[in-house]
């Protein structure tokens, strides 16, 4: 097991570096001279001497791969640079934004997984029944609804018409847990709904397949109650394929936070990203995009390890996983 974990860790390192390369390349695709782009001034407004000085100051006179190395090395030590105009360290800017995004993402994740597993199991236990049909149609609808649609609909119903929840703003979890939940439940649901639908559909097909296995027939013929049999014998095995999609799905949840944070005026990472794009604060954009990607890779790694603990075939060799 230990060897397996170390192997996965080592395999993840080049992927992380590749994401950094991708971000670096995208940012260097800025049209024109970086000095011009970064200062937002035209060529003629800055004297050539000042341009050269800025280039040296930002290390832009070094070859690209050295620039990349320096940038990566700084990031590894937690230095993401400073904002262009106000010279605030990017880490200081991002720090307070982590809380809201993590809270909404985690709430969305938990809601999505639990609701998805539930509706998937209900569907699978009576396939092609009316219940199954209703749940399938609902899932199709939920999967087709973009994040902001769900968010707007929730806001319209629960905040603007029923006045049950605040339409915008965020209360930190440790300041007032109840208020905090109220301020995040709608964005989290917006993020979770489509995710739940996807998990539900996977769970349904997986459990249907498992329920056709001979050992289930054996369990049935022993006279086990259907519910007990599903709980004790079928669920664990049918959840295996679901585990594999949990890692990459975190990327989708982060994507949801970008939209819903804007919608509900929540001061999280997604909102900071959108604001930074609009303000052309590239250091902040780089940092946030990298953090999102890095977290997704880390989650994937965790999922791989979890998968191996659930399925001994993986860690004992056989095929190498993904």
């Amino acid at each position, binding site marked *: 097991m230990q060897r397996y974990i170390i192997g996965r860790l080592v395999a993840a390192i*080049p*992927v*992380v570096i*590749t*994401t950094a390369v*991708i*971000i670096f390349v*995208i*940012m260097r*695709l*800025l*049209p024109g001279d970086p000095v011009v782009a970064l200062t937002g001034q035209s060529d003629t407004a800055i004297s050539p001497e000042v341009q050269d000085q800025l280039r040296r100051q930002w290390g832009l006179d070094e070859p690209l791969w050295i620039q990349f190395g320096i940038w990566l090395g700084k990031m590894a030590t937690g230095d993401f640079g400073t904002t262009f105009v106000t010279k605030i360290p990017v880490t200081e800017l991002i720090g307070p934004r982590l809380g809201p995004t993590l809270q909404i993402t985690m709430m969305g994740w938990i809601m999505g997984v639990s609701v998805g597993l539930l509706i998937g199991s209900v569907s699978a236990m009576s396939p092609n029944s009316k219940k199954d049909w209703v749940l399938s149609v609902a899932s*199709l*609808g939920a*999967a*087709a*609804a*973009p*994040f*902001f*649609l769900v968010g*707007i*609909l929730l*806001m*319209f119903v629960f905040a*603007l018409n029923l006045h049950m929840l605040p339409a915008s703003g965020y209360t930190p979890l440790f300041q007032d847990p109840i208020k905090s939940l109220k301020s995040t439940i709608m964005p989290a649901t917006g993020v979770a709904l489509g995710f739940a639908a996807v998990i539900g559909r996977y769970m349904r097909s997986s459990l249907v397949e498992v329920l056709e296995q001979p050992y289930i027939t054996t369990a049935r013929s022993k006279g086990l109650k259907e519910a007990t049999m599903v709980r004790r014998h079928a669920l664990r095995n049918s959840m295996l394929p679901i585990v594999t999609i949990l890692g*990459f799905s975190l*990327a*989708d949840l*982060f*994507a949801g936070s*970008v*939209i819903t944070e*804007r*919608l509900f005026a929540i001061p999280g990472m997604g909102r900071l*990203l*959108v604001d930074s*794009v*609009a303000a*052309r604060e*590239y250091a902040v*954009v780089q940092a*946030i*995009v990298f953090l*999102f*990607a*890095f977290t*997704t*890779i880390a989650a*994937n790694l965790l999922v791989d390890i979890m998968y191996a603990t659930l399925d001994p075939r993986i860690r004992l060799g056989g095929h190498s996983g*993904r």
Partner: protein
Amino acid sequence: MVDRAAVAQTAPVATTVAAAPPGDSRRGLKMALRRFARRRVVLVGVVIVAAELLFALLVPFLTPYSPLKQDLFATLAPPSGAHPLGTDDLGRDILSRLGYGARISLAIGLTGSLAGRIPGAVLGLFVGYRGGWVDMLVMRFTDAVMAFPGIVLTLAIVAVLGQGTYNIIIAIAIAGWPHAARLIRGQVLQARELDYVMAIRTVGARERRILFRHILPNTVQPLLVSASFGVGGAITLESGLSFLGLGILPPTPTWGSMINVGFQYIEIAPWLVFAPAVMIFLAVLGFNLLGDGIREAFDPYLK
């Protein structure tokens, strides 16, 4: 895995292998079409997609208003006989904007999906067949690209390239190709091990012929499915970007930017948001159902 070089050496004579006669494949297609049409859910998808396309095409005949013409005496008008879906904050006709917006949103959806999936599929076909270190490198690269949330990657690209239709299509394509590459690679890996492909190889078919004649057809159906879902994904991405104010520039109407503007007036004029919202939802649903339908129609194991 079979050593391909060895197979090629022991079978230098290219025997013509009887591929499925044309009549057969046509019958297969007909059966698939019949299965496709029998599913009611699929028909719903076809009807939705057709209706949206027709709406986009015929919008000049449905409303006399230009999507850009402002009428500052009739701002935020509720739905009425003159404006069936009301007007926006500048007095522009919502129905008209919805229709012209459909042209842009659907065009970006279709081209954005295909522009990513086709190169992705070609790459997947190539690395899946070739295998080895190229395959491993490309797969790790797709891992890295897929670690970025779709909208975050497109945001970053649009931030750099600038807003505008073509840049958004490029951004969507860049976010979309890894999905197709992985999917098609997986299909190729499976198809290579199929009994009949082994059989053809044993009788000495050339590698290129095996790839194009016998493996490629196996990848068409999943690619169609993926492209269909991709259209929905691309429409979602574009409308998300436009909703954030970072997509198509105003005054060009797109569904996402209409929601962005309408959101400020949601309490007094909710139709500004809900009209385009319904269009986006239906478009994504329609293409998803279409994708589902294609998958089931071509799956010989389903009824």
